[in-house]
């Protein structure tokens, strides 16, 4: 859609004056009003907007929280309780921020699985996808450091476990961990730098989001048919009002789920142990990360060797960046790939089970036969981990070569007609002025 031309017409003298010097209104008009979007997008395409909303919400609640929070090991826990008790609507800011992180990940996982199902990473959207992976990695780093700030038991021990992973690096590992901690254990310097970085990273995310949206607007959106736009008049509708109103509706629905947790179930997604102040001398019975890290934690624990586990975990994320080249199929949308469709759902289930494996004690029995443990949580995690990697490294490359895809629709407009069964392609285009 790179050839999409600007339709902005400055109406007043001031607008013309500004437009000649800094065409910022033109930029906004072209990207949020006249930007053509495929007319067959389903509600899974609203999660980009929802993610933008969550990012802004996290930044606003976060800035207010910082006004009342004290990044010091002796006061952090106390200051969070001060926010909950003494600050006007402090409980709202804090619960919106902690649950907002979870909602951010709910939305990002839906967004990613949507991209995987519809092949949104394929040419010409490889860089768009890779920028998304970069955002995801930054999000994980931000969320991890944010969880440390309340300085509860899970904050402290989570930070200890995750930073210790770097000690697995040969020769320099121990020095790196000391450098990360700013000392010889997780302590005040660690809390201070995590706080500084937790404030910085969201703005870096914001920067990469701008690149992500720029790339999106340059190549245009993918769509459920996976067929590129051929005729703008027939295949697309202008972003405003069509996508705008649809995104708004979806955002409000998403906000209701968000509000359900914030107002009625604010600690459901958290962990009771994090209401116990950090105690370096007392290890919790099970150290578990937040739910959104559990599949990766499952991979980490599946590998018996420490360095191997760390490498597997980082590889499982890094692999996502290579997805555009690992999937060899010429067809984008999973809707026209009968075999891929099955493997996609198996992959989703494997990711969920990896999360389950990551949340459970390693010695827990998964399968017992005649009183003997045939499979424990480690073994279960290993099977799932092997499948996770096989999906990317074996299944996707081979599927593209052997799978026989269904016939593709000639155009987006045709795919809409096929699914609704009425209307004429000639009149299927939108007229923004009506």
């Amino acid at each position: 859609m790179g050839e999409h031309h600007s339709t902005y017409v400055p109406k007043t003298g001031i607008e013309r004056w500004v437009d000649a010097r800094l065409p910022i209104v033109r930029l906004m008009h072209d990207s949020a009003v006249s930007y053509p979007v495929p007319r067959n997008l389903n509600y899974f395409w609203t999660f980009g907007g929802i993610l933008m909303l969550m990012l802004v919400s996290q930044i606003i609640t976060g800035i207010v929280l910082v006004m009342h929070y004290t990044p010091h090991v002796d006061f952090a826990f106390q200051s969070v309780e001060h926010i909950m008790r003494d600050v006007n609507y402090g409980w709202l800011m804090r619960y919106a921020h902690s649950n907002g992180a979870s909602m951010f990940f709910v939305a990002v996982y839906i967004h990613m699985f949507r991209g995987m199902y519809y092949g949104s990473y394929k040419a010409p959207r490889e860089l768009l996808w890779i920028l998304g992976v970069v955002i995801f990695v930054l999000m994980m780093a931000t969320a991890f450091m944010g969880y440390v700030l309340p300085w509860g038991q899970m904050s402290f021990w989570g930070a200890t476990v995750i930073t210790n992973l770097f000690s697995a690096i040969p020769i320099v590992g121990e020095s790196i961990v000391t450098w990360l901690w700013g000392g010889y254990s997780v302590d005040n310097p660690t809390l201070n730098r995590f706080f500084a970085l937790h404030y910085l990273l969201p703005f870096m995310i914001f920067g990469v989001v701008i690149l992500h949206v720029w790339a999106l607007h340059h190549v245009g959106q993918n769509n459920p048919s996976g067929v590129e736009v051929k005729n703008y008049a027939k295949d697309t509708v202008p972003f405003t009002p069509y996508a705008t109103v649809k995104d708004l509706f979806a955002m409000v629905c998403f906000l209701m789920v968000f509000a359900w947790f914030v107002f009625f179930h604010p600690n459901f997604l958290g962990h009771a142990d994090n209401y116990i102040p950090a105690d370096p001398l007392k290890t919790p019975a099970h150290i578990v990360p937040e739910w959104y890290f559990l599949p990766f934690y499952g991979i980490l624990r599946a590998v018996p060797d420490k360095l191997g586990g760390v490498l597997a975990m980082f590889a499982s994320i890094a692999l996502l960046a290579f997805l555009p080249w690992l999937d060899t199929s010429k067809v984008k949308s999973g809707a026209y790939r009968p075999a891929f469709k099955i493997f996609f759902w198996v992959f989703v289930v494997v990711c969920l089970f990896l999360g389950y494996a990551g949340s459970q004690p390693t010695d827990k029995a998964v399968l017992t036969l005649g009183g003997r443990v045939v499979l424990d949580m480690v073994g279960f995690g290993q099977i799932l981990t092997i499948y996770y990697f096989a999906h990317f490294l074996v299944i996707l490359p081979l599927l593209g070569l052997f799978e026989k895809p269904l016939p593709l629709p000639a155009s987006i407009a045709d795919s809409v007609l096929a699914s609704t069964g009425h209307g004429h392609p000639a009149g299927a285009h939108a007229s923004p002025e009506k």
Partner: protein
Amino acid sequence: MTIASRILAAAIVAGCSLALAGPALAAGGAEKPPRQTWSFYGPFGTFDKAQLQRGFKVYREVCAACHGLSKLSFRNLSEPGGPGFTEGQVKALAAEFRVKDGPNEQGEMFERPGRPSDRFPRPFPNDEAAKAANNGALPPDFSVIAKARSYERGFPIYIFDIFTQYQQQGVDYLTALLLGYEPPPPGVKVEDGLHWNRYFPGNKIAMANPLAAVFDDAGKPHDPNFFSDGTPVTKLQVAKDLSAFLMWAAEPKMEERKRAGVKVMLWLLLLAGLLFMLKKRIWSRLDDAPAKAH
């Protein structure tokens, strides 16, 4: 494809819940606490003021000697959504405590009667003193204890909890713990300074049965008029009242939060309805287009 979309949505929602970590406290062969009924259950649940006042009495007379309430101020006791003591009562109550203040103009620390704005004084000057007085065990602070204790719900029950609103693991556990003191089962040796409790993780707890301060060995209250409002003094009643008070102490803004939540939900619901109709109307232009073209 729409069916696939729906499955995807359902799978992701289920998966997000499935992937939740079980709380860490299930370790060590303790039984799951039985569920109690609470006035503050659900989106419209509120605290029972009389219960919170009774619970405060239990805290003050039974627990306060060892367990602090350091994040609360006396004034909280008269604030909306709490036990509903009057400001006069709170003032009188605060004055019964001695609070360390200073330094004064001579550079000396001094003690004065407490004021409503003071935080509850700690029962021990520091953790080491607390341990020394309690056989080496540190009595935890009670400010957020009702949120800091839990038990594992297990899959798939915790997914249903999202919809049933069950989030009383903490108070159910505390109530069960208070009622869980029993003679150890045959063959189990309990070391000196420890006590057998059916619901404590690992079953061996350093705290002696606190209800012994209210009830004799036969289970009869020392003072049948322990509660001034005439509520019968039973072990379950005392345990539940204290737990409810600790829930309020941990979540003093719960009523404000739920009230705001109901308004926010109704507002969002209305907005969603309007946006849905607007969306239908705007997108119907696309279906109209062929008719107009003819």
